[in-house]
Structures are given as C-alpha cells and as structure tokens.
C-alpha cells in the first residue's frame, strides 16, 4: 500500500467514522459514545466495547435548538444534533463526562431524550490541584468499571485492562512519532493529515489502526521541504470545522505543537502497564496538559502555552475559540495579555461547527499568516 492509499483510508474514517462504526457493529461490537473529554477509552475497550469520542457534526442544527438555547456552545449543540438527528442508531450506550455547566445539563438532556441501553455519568473532578481530586478520580473510575462490567455481563479484568493499555499506548506512541516527524521535516505530513490521524484514533479500534499507522510510518521520508514553512502553535479545545486545517496548509504554515484537547492532549501520555490499572489511569489523567474548564494548579493553564512556545519556537499562535464556550471566554483576555508580554503574535478565531466556509475566518487567517511572514523577513 502506498502512502496516499493508507492516508486516504484513515482520512475517510476520520472525516466520516460512521461507516466504520457500522461495520464494527455488524461484526458484533457495541459502540459506546462519549463527548469530550477525559473518559478513559481503555476502560470501555477492556469491557469489550468500541469507544467512540463524539466530536459533533458540521451539518445544520435542526433538532438540538429545541433543547439547547443558541447561547450554548457550538460543540454541545452540534454533539446533541449529531445523536438526536443524524446518527440516531449508532450508539448502544454512553459514558458522559461533565466539565462545565453546559455539559452538566447536556448530560440531563441527553439521558432524557436519547434512548440507549446504557448511560453512565462519569463525574470527573473539575479541579486537579488537590489530593482529593486524585482519590475521587480513582473511585469514579472504579465506579465506571463496575457499570461497564454490568453492561458487558462480565467483569472488566486487570488483564483485559492491561491489554487495552498496550493497544492504546502503541497508538499514542506511533502518533507521537509521526508528529515528531512532521515537526522535524515540515511538509512531509500536512496539518490536516496529522490531525486526521489523531482524530481517527478517537473512533477506531487500535487493532485496526495500528497496522495502518505502522505502514504509514514506513512510507515516511526525510525530505527537505521545498519552501520554508512557517511554524505555528495551535491552542484551544478543537479545530472545527476541520477545513480550517486545510486553509493552514494552503497558507504554507506547519503546526509544530498544539495544546488542543482534540490534539496532543489525547496522545501525550501513556498508561503504565504495571501495577494497579485504575491507579495507572488516574496517574495518566493527572499528567495531562491543562484543560480550560478544569481548575488547574496556579496559573498552569497559561504557563503551559508559554512553555510550549518556548520549546517549539513558533512564529505565532493560533487560538481556536468555540463559539459560546464561556470557559474559553474567561481565559482569553488574560491569555492575550500573557502572549503580548512574551511578544508572541496570537490570533483568536471564533469558530462554529456549522460554518464550514466562513470567508471572514479565512481572510483573517491569511492576514495573520502574511504578517508573520512579514515579520520573519524583517526580523
């Protein structure tokens, strides 16, 4: 298989995972859906199900509006729309995390309006700066294990968990390697391609994905780029619509780092395959990068971006703000200030899942990238 073919296979699933999920279901797998973020896929996988991260839809909002007002964030509305309207029969059950007011209520709406055989609230701690959060995450993960065992009709064993850890660790390691390659050899993997690969790992069974990623890795070359691409760092929760990444490719920039939730945060840490598996999942949770709605230690939310910028030395930062995400709204004015102090150019793009072609966003991106090119030439 050539590079293009492998990529196409993965990208097809990343952009429309539902044919893949359906095929898995026909083959006897049950699909468990979870909105962002922090549901341990390994636990769902070890229980014998296909864990699927629900990443919203770019299709029009038709039904969700009757349940969530228009000042609910675009992610919540498009997630609800997806399961209420477009993909009614895909999921056998849900594990639903809560991180903010919107997700807490979305959880209620979801449970009350979408029929499913299984619904488990996964009440992750909304602070990670004290010891109690660790104990709580541990207990809550145990509770999830029990609930999934109940639905599966058999206990989730330690051995099954370790097996799942191995699978997911391998996926993460491969993705990290590819990301490293992209960083070292700009132009070998495009921005859209890289994030499609990460996205695929949020839907696909690792047993299917690993061989594809390995084959893809073999095709990697150490070519030098033809024209020097401009290094940038991405921040925010998710890049939506994904077409924005294509725009970045067209504009000649190379993403050298990111702190997106649908991005590096998904692949940055592994789960230890030794010791108490629930303890290991807990440790991974607390090693993760910060996440806007979760109260982190001190100013870690900002320090993280500062460090990332220092390590990867981008020409600029592109921040993706999900429309009506109030968590990001509260972060942004101070974050802009921090970047100004560091003399790091940053642009904030207000994004909405339903606006696939927004000329204004494109124009702003173009102007930003041009100004960065200008700075590079002058500096």
């Amino acid at each position: 298989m050539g590079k293009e073919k492998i990529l196409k296979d993965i990208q097809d699933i990343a952009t429309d995972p539902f044919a893949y999920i359906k095929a898995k279901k026909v083959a006897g797998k049950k699909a468990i859906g979870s909105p962002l973020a922090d549901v341990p896929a390994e636990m769902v996988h070890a229980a014998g199900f296909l864990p699927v991260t629900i990443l919203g839809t770019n299709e029009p909002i038709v039904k969700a509006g009757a349940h969530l007002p228009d000042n609910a964030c675009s992610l919540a509305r498009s997630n609800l729309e997806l399961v209420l309207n477009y993909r009614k029969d895909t999921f056998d059950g849900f594990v639903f995390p809560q991180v903010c007011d919107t997700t807490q209520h979305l959880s209620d709406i979801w449970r009350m309006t979408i029929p499913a055989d299984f619904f488990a609230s996964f009440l992750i701690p909304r602070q990670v700066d004290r010891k109690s959060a660790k104990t709580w995450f541990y207990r809550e993960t145990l509770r999830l294990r029990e609930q999934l065992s109940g639905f599966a009709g058999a206990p989730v064993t330690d051995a099954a968990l370790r097996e799942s850890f191995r699978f997911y660790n391998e996926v993460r390691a491969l993705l990290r390697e590819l990301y490293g390659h992209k960083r070292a050899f700009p132009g070998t993997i495009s921005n859209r391609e890289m994030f499609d690969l990460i996205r695929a790992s949020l839907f696909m069974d690792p047993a299917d994905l690993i061989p594809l990623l390995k084959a893809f890795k073999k095709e990697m070359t150490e070519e030098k780029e033809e024209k020097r691409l401009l290094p940038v760092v991405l921040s925010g929760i998710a890049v939506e619509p994904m077409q924005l990444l294509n725009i970045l490719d067209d504009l000649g920039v190379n993403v050298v780092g990111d702190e997106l939730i649908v991005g590096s945060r998904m692949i940055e840490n592994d789960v230890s395959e030794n010791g108490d598996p629930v303890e290991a999942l807990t440790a991974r949770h607390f090693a993760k990068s910060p996440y806007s709605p979760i109260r982190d230690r001190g100013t870690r939310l900002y320090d993280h971006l500062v460090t990332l910028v220092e390590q990867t030395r981008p020409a600029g930062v592109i921040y993706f703000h999900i429309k009506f995400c109030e968590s990001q709204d509260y972060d942004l004015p101070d974050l802009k200030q921090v970047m100004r102090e560091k003399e790091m150019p940053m642009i904030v793009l207000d994004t909405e899942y339903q606006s696939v072609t927004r000329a204004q966003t494109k124009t702003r991106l173009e102007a930003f990238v041009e100004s960065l090119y200008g700075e590079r030439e002058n500096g």
Partner: protein
Amino acid sequence: MADVKPGMTAKDYSRQLTKAYYEGAKHARENGKFIAYTTAVSPAELFYAHDVIPIYPENHSVMMITHRMTAELSESIERKGYTSHLCAYARSDLGFRELHKSPIGGIPDPDFLLACNAQCFTLTKWFEVLARRYNVPLFVFDTPQFIRDKKAREEIITYVEEQIYEMIESLETLTGKKFDFDRLKEVLEYSRQASILYKTYLDMASYKPSPISIFDALINMAITVYLRGTPEAVQFYRLLVDEVMENKVKKGIGVIENEKYRLYWENLPIWFKFKDHFNFLASYGAVILSSLYVHAWSYDFDPSNPVRTLAENYASVFSNVEMEERAQMALDLFNRYSLNGNFMFLNRSCKAVSFAIHELRDIITEKTGIPALVFESDMGDPRFYSESQIRTRLEAYLETLDQLAFEKMRQF
C-alpha cells in the same frame, strides 16, 4: 453586630445588619481580619468559624444591577475583550474592578477565593480571573452532580468531605491559626436555626391569600446568604416571621388584593424589573409566590456532625441535582403552595440554572396540567431585555389562564 432594639421592624434590622456587615468588611484589614470571596452557595460556615469575613461578589453585583449600572460596567470590560454573553454578575463585578463604580463604595479586595460549583461553573472561571488579578489562592470546591445513584452519592459525599478538610487546611495556612471544630458546631447551630426560620418564612406562601410574594423573599433572602452562621441572622428571621404572622397572616391580609393566580417562577429574577413585574401582575390578580432559587438557602444542618452535614447540604442544592429530581423539588412547591401558574425564565446570564429548562417544563406541565410560559431574557443586562415583548407574552399567558379557568367553571 447589633441586637434588635424594641420597636424595630425586620426591615430596619436588616438595613442595620447590612450596613454593619459592609462596614466590618471595609475595616477588616485594620482589625487584622482576612477577607474571603465566596459564592452564594458555599460552606461559608467555615469562614465564620475561623473568623474570616466572607464577601459575596454576587450580592454586590445584584446591587449594581438594581442601580442599573450593569450596561456601563459591562461595556468597560467588553472593551478589554470579555464578551457580553457572560453572566451579568461576573460582568458587573469585573466592570466594577475597572471603573471602581459601586452603589456602596465597593467591596474590599480578597485574600482568598472559594468557588463552589454546586451553584455553577461560571463562578469558578470568574474567580479564576480574580485569582490572577489579586494573586491570591483559589479553592474550587468541587461538588460533582448529585446523581440519583446511592453508591455514587455516598462517594460524592466522601469527596466533598475530604475537600472540607482541605479547605480547613487552606484557612489555617492563610491565617496561621488552628481551626476550631467546636466553634464550627456553634456556627452551624446558628445556620441551622436561621435556615429553619427562613424556610418557615418562605412557607408562608402556603397561606391563602399569601402574605408574601417572591419579591419579599428575594429581598429578605440576603441576610441568610451572607450572614447565616451568625446569631444576628437567627434574630432577623425570628423577627421577620413574627412580623408577617402578626401583621398579615392573623389578619388574613394578602400581599395583593383579589389574589387569583399563584405563580411559580423558574430561575433568578430579572433584578432590575422585579418591582414593575410585581405591579403589572398584581393588576391581573396574579402574584409570583415562589421559586427553587429562593429555596436554595433552606438548608437542613445537623451540627453534631459538622463536616458531613456541610457536605450533604451543599452537594444537594437544586442546581446540582439531575433534572428529574429538580422537577420533583419544584412540584413540591406547586403542591405545598397551591400554585396555578408557571413562568419559566430562560436567563441568558445563567446557563447553570437555565439549560435543560424544556425538559424541566415537560415534567412539570405533565404532572400539574398547568401550562408554562417559557421566555428568554437576561437577569441583569437591560440591553437584552425587551419590555414590550415580555409584557405581551406575560399578558397573553395570563389571558390563557383566564380562559382555562373559565372553561373549567363551565364544565361544572
């Protein structure tokens, strides 16, 4: 603070307490005391027990809203990059910090911040902004949704209890003083008594005609919000209950004449309009009697088990339970107060209380058979309030109730 002097009305006493409270806060530093900002729903008893002064920026924001300062304050922070769809309390507060405008001369800066997310998530982010601004510790008191699962509840309580101990440690670090659990029990005893009396007061809405409306409840809830845990709060509610009993209940005087419709109000009030709404509704023989919101401070403390009772009470507040349970809580008010109308306000400021309102309406309407009016506006920002639109909708709703009452009569 101060005792009730003979001849003093509850209103006089409340004024005096409020004045003394803000004065105390203003001079806290001179008196060697620390100031903590906290959220209206939070284990504030810990502060009173440790001699730290709790201040409620939300309360201060209500004053700015009712003095119609929010639009100006909000614009000042919108220029700094905050958006106009954030909670109007947060916008008023952040704007106050920009413009230093306040109807009471402002509130002192904090030494410590406590945000309890049983009330909402917004507060944790708003306080995070303040934590950076003043470089002071922020303690997010995390109360996972109190789902209807026995085992989960037990575990949630344990998690919350652990955080109470962590909070106590933080207070000890702040002040350098050892925490006194006996004092906590004492404070909780005051909170317990004040809560019972406050609830007795709210429950006066069950009399026919009702001697109180929600607008009275909203005015009188302030004391339990910021002074529960003090003997003065107990005295105030005793005075208030006695007063309403003597002056209204015993004489059969209702809060409006010709009471026809006894209404439920979902959500917080539209603060800058509530007097107008009251008068307008009264002209139709309608009065709003209660809301889950005012009941958020009817706690049930057991001082003999202080840490557990704090955990149980604060984790289970109406804004932190599942919608089915919240509907039950509202239905309980419909039953106890014989309510026959339902205004459901979708408050743009407050996602925490507003989202899932349609699911809530469906349950309440199904169980009571009473139609509900769902309407959207903002509790604090006149820029998002359309007088004519809301009046028309309220009127149309009251006419529907008239129509239904008429049809019911005809059936007999």
